[in-house]
């Protein structure tokens, strides 16, 4: 399972960087979205995958049975998802605004107003 996910994560990183290197603003946003998903998956996988072992102490016992699924990385990912959601929402609003004032999807036109 780890191997499959590692390949998926590597693929996602590669795709997201490829998209970010394109000149189109839409592809830039898609790249950023995929990037944040890839990072979340990496956090999830790097902390170790344990199936069907919730970290709950059973009745009568006073310690967790080993192995158990570590809940902390999932809490981290939850936080990271919320943050990246906010960032993506802002990015979308910003690029919409940029598109309406630049009237182009081409990132190379950014900063055109600076050049004489």
């Amino acid at each position, binding site marked *: 399972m780890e191997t499959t996910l590692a390949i998926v994560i590597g693929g996602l990183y590669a795709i997201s960087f490829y998209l*970010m290197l394109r000149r189109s603003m839409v592809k830039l946003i898609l790249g950023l979205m995929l990037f944040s998903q890839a*990072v979340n998956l990496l956090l999830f996988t790097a902390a170790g995958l344990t199936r069907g072992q919730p970290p709950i102490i059973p009745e009568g016992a006073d310690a967790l049975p080993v192995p158990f699924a570590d809940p902390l990385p999932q809490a981290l990912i939850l936080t990271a998802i919320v943050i990246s959601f906010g960032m993506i929402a802002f990015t979308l609003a910003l690029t919409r605004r940029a598109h309406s004032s630049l009237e182009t999807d081409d990132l190379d036109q950014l900063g055109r107003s*600076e050049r004489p």
Partner: protein
Amino acid sequence: MKLALVLPLLVPLLTAVACILAGASRVAQRALSVLGSGALLAAGLWLLRSVDAGGIQVVQLGNWPAPFGITLVADLFSAIMVAITGFVALCVAVFALANIDPARERFGFHPLYQLLLLGVCGAFLTGDLFNLFVWFEVMLMSSFVLLALGGERPQIEAAVKYLTLNFIASGLFLTALGILYGQFGTLNMADLAVKLRDQPSGVTLSSAMLLFVSFGIKAGVFPLFFWLPASYHTPPVAVSAIFAGLLTKVGVYALIRVFTLIFTADPATTHTLIVVVSVLTMITGVLGAAAQYEIRRVLSFHIISQIGYMTLGLGLFTTAAIAASIFYIVHHIVVKTNLFLIGGAIGHVRGTGELKQLGGLYRDYPWIGLLFLIPAMSLGGIPPLSGFFAKFALVKSALEIPSYWPVVAALAVGLLTLFSMTKIWAEAFWKAEPEGATGGTRGPVPLLMLVPIVAMALLTVAIGFFPGTLLDLATRAAGQLMNPNGYIEAVLGRTP
């Protein structure tokens, strides 16, 4: 609960909430913003005093013991940074009253400004890498909106670049956290420091480098600085001044924190790399500045070049060098913010920051000329101003190692900095004003702009005349950073 440690977070948070509640009342928002920034300065000074008197302060929020809970920790370095943040925040908040237009105030400039300060203070005070990430995001979110607020076209273009680069930096940060957590099962900085001690491994090195790139983007080191000169000159001056003063320094703070506390097992690799990158940062920044002809663009490139000096102290990795870095950070925050504010005052009376269209300012505003010279000469390193002692301490610490070629670079870059400052002086103040220039108010500089500029110039002069006080404080802070056992013991409650 140690109140002194929590106040620098509570004050800006409550001020932001109060500003939002004050809503439509512009007067109330303005008063609250200045009051809140003043209270932050008081809280910062209190924290500095209690850390200075009582050693490293730690609070475990929710009463979960470290490394499980959320740890707030303030050593001398954090406390110095929070105090200087309070000072700059107050100065810029006053300047903003005269600089930010009513439309931007109506769309929430004041609450955003306070949330930015909250993020900055949080980053200085947290003892946990994941919380550092969260505070970075708080800071970045507010800075995105502050940068884009107003929606002028250059602002929007700058915001797209700024946002993309910082998004990537945050992603790399989180990647490094994932790898570290997978390997060591903790993200508490003190706990990581214990677990990574004297264990150089490939995984550690790769996460160290990921963090270096991520913080390097935020700090603006070579070759990751391109977003900075592309964005800092576009928003209103009060916004770019607080960005210039504080945001890159948060990146430098994070670099110093992780590379003195956590990744110290293999300084021959990591810290040598930092020295090389620092020297390149200094040189490219100052050469970039030489090519620019807009005041805030010149100053933006100088931020980059000065960041090189701060990280150089970290790369040299001795107590004296890190003390020099801390001295440099404090000096630079005050001086650079002040230069941006003076650039703003010039823009106010002349309507432009383009050096070619400026002139005759010394004839019309001799006092502004004098006030410009203080931070400008300080930035160039002319005695007896603060910049001279900052550079002197850094060069002296490098010669003690001995490490000669960074010294050569530092001195040469100092000369070129002086050249840039004289360029601004000659073009804006000295030469006659080009014919037909009529922009700006042409009236006297508003008192609300003058007061913060004078206050910061006074602090620059005071550091210059009494460098011993700050250098002593910085040396003790560096001593704490170089012997992290005290920090680890304070957080984990046991001797490592």
